[in-house]
Structure formats: structure tokens, C-alpha cells
């Protein structure tokens, strides 16, 4: 009896070490770069958390262009890295190709969908999270005018804008929403100066809450709003700490969880392919409340946003997804 128990234990220990040794995680960022204080950095933080907890090292790569991204994903797969996580929709076709070439490697794609037996696709309901911060913005605005500043003009960013507008309108039906996109090229993700100028412009038109969904460009938006004594809303990572007292809240998109879960599941041999749609309900998106913005959120706002959250979860409120039909209801 004792012997069997011991051997069982030994087997368990062996299989555990075998599994732990098996996993060689890799991470490929979007072209915005690793330390954007937003999307890619969230992915990096998820991987770092995994490393801190398990002691397992990961490799990462910052591609400069589409061809290089595919090469990096293939390189990781061919060198035995597993699972390979690629964040950004830009790697959709790359994952599609490489996953077919390496059927034994597990792939995770964030922000887009590939239907393959060895691919997990993680997408977020950004419109729901944006709706929540829109509700807060609509209530916080004293002028009845709020602003939105997007990065590059692509459907994904319009999805943020559309959810935000719906939320603001739910809080205040007469609200006016200004929106600007920073640009039409990838540089729009990394242009804080232009972000600041657009913010100034919206403030001049009367906006007093401005939501930035623009990667590193958003840093300029937050800065300008703080300089002018207005409120701003951060995106992807919790950016409340950047300008305490001025950043009203942040629309948090838990890219870190997608990365962390992928590695953990692979390590524990629980990896499942298929689609994971993370919305408000799954805590994949949400709004950030911490010591830095506690004083800005009134009990009424808190109650309204909690109700909006419950309504989205129960299905009483359906936030329109811009990308479902490429249009936003007015």
C-alpha cells in the first residue's frame, strides 16, 4: 500500500516535472512595440506574471512589419517553442498558415479568430467595456460634451468609439460626442503630440471628458487633459496612475490574462483550442477603480455603471458592436 502510494507520488512528481519542462512559451507582439504602456505591455505583463509564479522563462519578439511577424511565429514554432502566443489582429493570416505547418504546436491569437484545431482565439468585447466608461463619462461631463480620440482609423477602433458613444448617450441622451482619429498609418499609434493637439481642439469645443483609444498616442491625450484641468479615460492597461485626479478611469482589456492563461493552461495540460470571447461578463473587459480615481467616481456613477454592467451581463442592455455590420446607430 505504502509502496503504491509512493510510486504514485513519484509518478505524479515525474509527470509534473516532465510537463513543466515541456513548455517553452513564446510571445510575438503587435507592431506597436513592447513598452507602449497599453496593449502590448499588457501582454508582456501577463507573461512576466507567469514567469514570476512558475520560474519558467519565455521568449518574446517585436516584429517591425507583417512579413517579419510571420517569420517570427514560424521561427518560434520550428525551434520547439510551445505555446506560441501572438497578440494583434495583424497576425491572423500568419497564424493561419503557420498553425497548419505545425499541427503539434499550440497557438494563441489575441484580437482575431482562426479556426484550427491547435489554435485558441481570444477576442474581447471592447464595445461593452467602452460602454461602461461611456456611462461614467456621460455622468461626469458638466458641459454635456465628451470626446473620443482613436489611434489608426480601423474598424476595431471604431468599435471602441461606438460603444463609448452608446454608453454616454445612455447616461445623458442629449450628450454631444466629438470624435477624432489620430491618423491613417501605423504612426498614429505613437504620436502623443498630435494626440495632445486633438485633445486641445476638443477641449476648445467644450468637451470635458476625453477617452483615448490610441496606444502610446493616448499618453499625449491624458497629459493634455491633465494640463487643462479636464478629465480623461485611459485604455487597455489601467492608466489611472499616470495623472491621478485627472484620469477618470481606464477601459481595461485583460490581454495579460489571455497570455497568462494560455501559458498556465499549457503548463497544466489544460490547453483548449477554439474561440474565447471575453466580455464584461467574463471580466475580459471592464473599468478600473483604484486609489488614484476614487475621489472622481461619485456614488451615483458607481451605481449607474454597476447597473449597466449587470444589464449587459443579464442581456437587458445590448451594446451594438460596430464590427457586426460596420455601422454605429445614432
Amino acid at each position, binding site marked *: 500500500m505504502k509502496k503504491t502510494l509512493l510510486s504514485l507520488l513519484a509518478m505524479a512528481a515525474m509527470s509534473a516535472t516532465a510537463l513543466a519542462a515541456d513548455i517553452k512559451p513564446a510571445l510575438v507582439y503587435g507592431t506597436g512595440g513592447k513598452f507602449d504602456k497599453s496593449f502590448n505591455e499588457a501582454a508582456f505583463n501577463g507573461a512576466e506574471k507567469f514567469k514570476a509564479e512558475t520560474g519558467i522563462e519565455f521568449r518574446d*519578439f517585436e516584429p517591425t512589419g507583417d*512579413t517579419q511577424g510571420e517569420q517570427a511565429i514560424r*521561427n518560434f514554432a520550428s525551434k520547439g517553442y510551445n505555446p506560441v502566443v501572438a497578440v494583434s489582429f495583424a497576425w491572423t493570416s500568419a497564424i493561419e498558415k503557420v498553425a497548419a505547418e505545425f499541427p503539434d504546436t499550440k497557438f494563441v491569437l489575441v484580437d482575431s479568430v482562426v479556426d484550427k484545431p491547435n489554435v485558441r482565439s481570444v477576442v474581447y468585447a471592447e464595445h461593452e467595456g467602452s460602454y461602461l466608461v461611456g456611462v461614467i463619462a456621460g455622468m461626469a461631463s458638466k458641459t454635456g460634451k465628451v470626446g473620443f480620440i482613436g489611434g489608426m*482609423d480601423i474598424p476595431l477602433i471604431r468599435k471602441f468609439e461606438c460603444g463609448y458613444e452608446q454608453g454616454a448617450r445612455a447616461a445623458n441622451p442629449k450628450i454631444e460626442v466629438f470624435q477624432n482619429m489620430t491618423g491613417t498609418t501605423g504612426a498614429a499609434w505613437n504620436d502623443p503630440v498630435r494626440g495632445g493637439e486633438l485633445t486641445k481642439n476638443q477641449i476648445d469645443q467644450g468637451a470635458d471628458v476625453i477617452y483615448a483609444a490610441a496606444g502610446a498616442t493616448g499618453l499625449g491625450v491624458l497629459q493634455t487633459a491633465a494640463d487643462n484641468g479636464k478629465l480623461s479615460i485611459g485604455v487597455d492597461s489601467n492608466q489611472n496612475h499616470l495623472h491621478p485626479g485627472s484620469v477618470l478611469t481606464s477601459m481595461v482589456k485583460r490581454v495579460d490574462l489571455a497570455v497568462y492563461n494560455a501559458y498556465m493552461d499549457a503548463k497544466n495540460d489544460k490547453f483548449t483550442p477554439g474561440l474565447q470571447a471575453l466580455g464584461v461578463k467574463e471580466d475580459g473587459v471592464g473599468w478600473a477603480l483604484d486609489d488614484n480615481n476614487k475621489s472622481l467616481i461619485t456614488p451615483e456613477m458607481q451605481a449607474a455603471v454597476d447597473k449597466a454592467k449587470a444589464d449587459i451581463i443579464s442581456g437587458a442592455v445590448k451594446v451594438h458592436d460596430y464590427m457586426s455590420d460596420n455601422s454605429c446607430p445614432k
Partner: protein
Amino acid sequence: MSTASVSLPNWITYGLMPLLNLTLAFVISGLVVWLIGENPFEAVKLLLIGALGRGEGIGFTLFYATNFIFTGLSVAVAIHAGLFNIGSEGQAYLGGLGAALVALALDNYLPWYATMPFAILGAAAAGAAWAFIPAWLQAKRGSHIVITTIMFNFIGAALMVYLLVNVLIVPGKMAPETRTFLEGGQLPKLDWLMELFGLKLGAAPFNFSFIIALVMCVVVWFLIWRTKFGYEMRTLGISPSAASYAGIPYARTVIITMLISGGLAGMMALNPVMGASARLQVEFVGGAGFVGIAVSLMGRNHPLGIVLAALLFGILYQGGGELSFDMPNITRDMIVVIQGLVILFAGALEFMFRPALVRIYQNFVKA
């Protein structure tokens, strides 16, 4: 005594000088690599193995080089007429639209070799059209071509994003791109060419547009040095007043030169759009238009030099990517530093060693 007027033998101007410049660029890059705590020799080894070590690496190197040959030729043609076309980037971007529209229209009905001529024409026509307005403004209104072509890069980017996000996008898909072209709208891979040398192409997107690029090199050489129009271009480039005294029409020469330059830039789109990804994507040019300026300068605006310079930049691109992959300490920004040093020494400071070389050469000849 000034050394600028002394003529040196070709092997020094075209062989030794670029080699010295390149060596210096790599020595300084090596110092930077050493400063951040990596072994420079190991780095060079990784870079060269990544670019030339395997069939797949060579395929990628040649793929990048194809882009740079097109844009390099585009810049060179304009420079011969004294025009500095900084708009190759935008012209190539619009060229992608021309190629993609042809591919989308014909891929269902025709095999690739029948689609290809139309796609070449479409890409060249779209690129040329994008160069036309700056050319016309330069020729008739005297607006400086450098300024207008730069501005047209931005207008081109805005137009393309508008089209891809609103018009050409596949409904319901996340990425702003067209549908994937069927086989009839794709250019075939050149794996047979690689196999002649016993190499495996693997996943590299090295494709038929490389051959189109080489044909264009011959065409450009013939145009510039063997035709009447090429003579007019070069005359205009060396001395606009002498050209006008000789009866060479300024406006016509400027406009036609820019149309050719824009057309060559537009053809670059064949390589990534129809050869590699088989769809039109946002920002597929990825800076190749600007690299073309460096390639043209390094290649002394001669097709042969351009091919060599394009190969060098292909090696830097592909090898650089592999290097930063294998040495995580060397970030992608480091690779840009290395490329920048090569451009600085081989392009901007190309004549730095010339006075010294002239002195050595003269002493050598006297003795």
C-alpha cells in the same frame, strides 16, 4: 589643391570606396553591439547566417531586395533628371491598389501569366498617376518636387486606408484588407530557381516579381543611356539652363520622367501584394520607398549598383530580423541603428575617404 576634380580609376570609385564605407559602418555598429554587452563577431555571424545561411533565409533576403530594386530604380530615374522623388513610398502604396484591383477582377478567369501583364500595367499606371500631380506642379507651377511628393505620401496613405477600411474590406473581418486572391491573381514562387542551386525555399515569399525587377533594371539602363529621352533627362539633370538652351522641353521631360519613376515605384507592389500575401493590406510598403533613396544613392544611380545595394539592404533586413530574434538584447531599434549607420556612411558620407584616397593614389602613381 582641391581633390574633387581629380579622377580616380573605376575600381576605386565603385569598388574600394563603397567597401571602405561599409567596413567603417560595420566597425561602428560592432562597437555599439559591444557597448550593449554582446559579442559583435557573434552578431555578424548570426546576421549573415540568418540572411544567407539557408535557402529560406536567402529567399527572404531576395524578397526584400526585390522591393528595394524597384524603389531604388524609381528614385534613380528621377535623380538623373535632377528630380528628388521622395514619394516612392506613396507611389508604391497606390501601385498596390492598381495591382490588387486587376487581381481581384481577373483571378477568377485567368491563369497567373495572363493576369500578370495587366497587373504590371495596373500597378505602374496607379503609381505613375500618383506621381503625375507633383510632377505637373513642379513643371508648370514650380512647386518643389521634394515637398509635394512628401505630402503625397500622406495623402496616399489616407486614401488607401479609407479604401481598405470602407470599400475593399471583407465585411465582418477585423483586418482592413482585401479578400485573398485566387491562384490566378498570385505570382508564383521561384522555388525552381532556388532548386537549381540545391536550395530549399521553404516559407520564403521569393517570387516571380524578382525577375520583373531584373528586367526593369535592363529597361532602365537602356532608357537612361541608350535613348534620346534618356539623354534629354540627363542633360536636364546636369544643367537645366543648358537643357533649355538646347531646346529640351522642361515641362514634358519632368512630367514623363516622374511618370516613369512613379510607375517603377508602383510595380514594387507586385512583390508583396501579389507575390507574398496575395491580398492588399494596410501599410504593405513598410518603408521600402524610403530605403529606395538610400539604395539608389549607394548604387550610384546605376541599375547594377542598385541591384547590389538592394541585396545589401535585403541582407540587413532579413539578417537583422534573425539577429534580433536570436539575440534578444539586440532590439529592433538596434537593427535600425545599424541600417542607419550603413546609410550614413555609404550614402550621405560616400565621399568622405575620397580626398585621402586621391592623395594616396597620386603618390602611388608618381612613384
